[in-house]
């Protein structure tokens, strides 16, 4: 009996000895009970084990196309679009940005009496989570050929339709989880950095940030002092209640659902479209500034040049136009 205890004692003594030397000497853990004096700089076993576990995890994650559904709140992006030559190019580029953003639900609303095959096929192949809607703009509200782009507000009915669908859809998802989310109005010709979507995810009511290359300025931005928006840096009509661009704010889903009548007013004067929605939802001092207290530009109001079709038109007169079967 004494012999057994003696052996146990020796064993424990060795363990104690090595652990007393400090956490660096962990060579004895694992297989070798007898504490072979290995070169401990190489065999940092727990760290190695942790690293190999992490590597396995990483490989598994990389195989999946998207990260597993996590506690991230969904970003609902409402984009109005209309048929024109560059439509497919714009939507393609935009979808390539959205594909990087997890938990994003794209609500694409066409300005058209019917869903077009171009957009339907495009969305099917995009790999995104989407909802395809359509609502035509009334003729008198539509911009005519030759009208300057600022003459009539664009995308109003489409954005409102997006909001209406969202409210309907959320009714079928009761509970607190269904109310979590952020609503963002993204136009199909702007440029969005991926960081923007992470900034907006934490929106509690309405969050705001600077927008580049808009309103004739390098950027328009809310001015933040003491963590609150005190005024707006803009060159055009700063007296508007919310003098910012559509791309410069996001609304929490909860707020959208709590105010079922809040929508864009198509009759609002030029530049007041954003205010027509926001004034029913929030006051200026409740705005949450993002992008490092509104010091970083994460979205740009880029415009796409209209492609020149002079030669196409000349050929079509001769009956030799580009093959219409080739979708552009």
């Amino acid at each position, binding site marked *: 009996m004494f012999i057994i205890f003696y052996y146990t004692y020796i064993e424990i003594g060795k*363990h104690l000895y090595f652990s007393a030397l400090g*956490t660096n000497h962990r060579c004895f853990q694992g297989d070798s009970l007898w504490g072979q004096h290995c070169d401990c700089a190489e065999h940092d076993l727990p*760290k190695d084990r942790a690293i190999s576990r992490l590597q396995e995890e990483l490989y598994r994650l990389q195989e999946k196309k998207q990260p597993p559904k996590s506690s991230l709140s969904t970003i609902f992006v409402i984009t109005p679009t209309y048929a024109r030559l560059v439509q497919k190019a714009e939507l393609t580029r935009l979808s390539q940005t959205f594909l990087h*953003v997890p938990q994003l639900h794209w609500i694409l609303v066409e300005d058209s009496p019917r869903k077009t095959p171009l957009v339907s096929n495009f969305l099917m192949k995009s790999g995104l989570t989407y909802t395809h809607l359509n609502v035509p703009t009334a003729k008198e509200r539509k911009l005519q050929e030759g009208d300057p782009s600022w003459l009539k507000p664009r995308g109003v009915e489409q954005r409102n339709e997006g909001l209406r669908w969202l409210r309907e859809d959320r009714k079928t998802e009761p509970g607190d989880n269904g109310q979590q989310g952020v609503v963002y109005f993204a136009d199909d010709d702007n440029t969005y950095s991926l960081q923007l979507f992470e900034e907006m995810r934490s929106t509690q009511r309405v969050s705001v940030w600077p927008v580049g290359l808009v309103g004739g300025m390098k950027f328009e931005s809310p001015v933040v002092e003491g963590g609150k928006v005190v005024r707006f840096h803009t060159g055009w009509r700063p007296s508007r209640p919310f003098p910012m661009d559509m791309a410069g704010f996001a609304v929490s889903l909860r707020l959208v659902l709590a105010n079922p009548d809040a929508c864009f007013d198509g009759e609002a004067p030029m530049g007041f479209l954003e205010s027509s929605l926001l004034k029913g939802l929030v006051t200026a001092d409740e705005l949450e500034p993002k992008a490092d207290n509104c010091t970083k530009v994460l979205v740009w109001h880029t415009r796409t040049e209209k492609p020149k079709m002079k030669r196409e038109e000349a050929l079509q007169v001769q009956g030799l136009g580009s093959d219409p079967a080739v979708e552009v």
Partner: protein
Amino acid sequence: MPKRRDILAIVLIVLPWTLLITVWHQSAIAPLLAIRKACHHLVKEIFIIPERLAVHHHRLSDEGAEGRREAGGQDSKEYCASDKDIVEVVRTEYVYTRPPPWSDVLPTIHIITPTYSRPVQKAELTRIANTFLHVPNLHWILIEDSQRRTPLVTSLLRETGLNYTHLNVETPKNFKIRGDTRDPRIPRGTMQRNLALRWLRETFKNNSQPGIVYFADDDNSYSLELFEEMRSTRKVSVWPVAFVGGLRYESPKVNAAGKVYGWKAVFDPHRPFAIDMAGFAINLKLILSKPQAYFKLRGVKGGYQESSLLRELVTLNDLEPKAANCTKA
């Protein structure tokens, strides 16, 4: 009164067990403590590991690989503070700028993009980087038209996480566009593209790695299928390009045998290669085998820039039509 022998027996029984229990307890905690200390280092490693395993070939970036991942926006301290298992950290962490893992079998696509400073530069580069982040085995060669590499482009490239090379060469003033951007006599981006070709030739001189070279401008739109189409280029492959030359699209004319015999273009269709810069890709081996082939800088008529390079590399017969025999834009 208990005998001394019994006391000794009890001590010898109890002592080892208490020591054993203490040691077990300690050995459970010590690794955790070590892991917490190593956690900060490991969280950085989480991002670096794929790169180290993935990238094989030579990269000419002045900043090391460490700088790339740090700007991912995650603070390692947030995650290391908790006692949670490190595997948890990997699950909840989202790396939003991460190109696909490098593959050993796919040929690398070297994308040459000249760029210059103007208000929309950062926006254009951001959105084209978002596109490139989807393409595996992509190497972006960005050449600035400037005297020095600008901090804007340097930090943008670093933050994207892409595999890149950052070069610069300034176009001399007398070559630069003089106000009129539509003037086709002055070729834009030529010196920058030539510098990239020279860099490729110097870098891959003794390297037989398969690669494809594509000239992508920073203001175009690219579908992801395009990059997969061009990967199989043996010499020079071609495809239609939309909204160029005043047409809905310009395209090579392909006969029933799958060979290019002409050009569907209205703007000077008798050019040797009536194609836009975005309409063709060249196999790297061809570039390396013809070290004199560059874009002509002087005396190039409008629209002939592409031809000035391609005619030194290939004949019409060697062109490989892609995009379903050039029927898709």
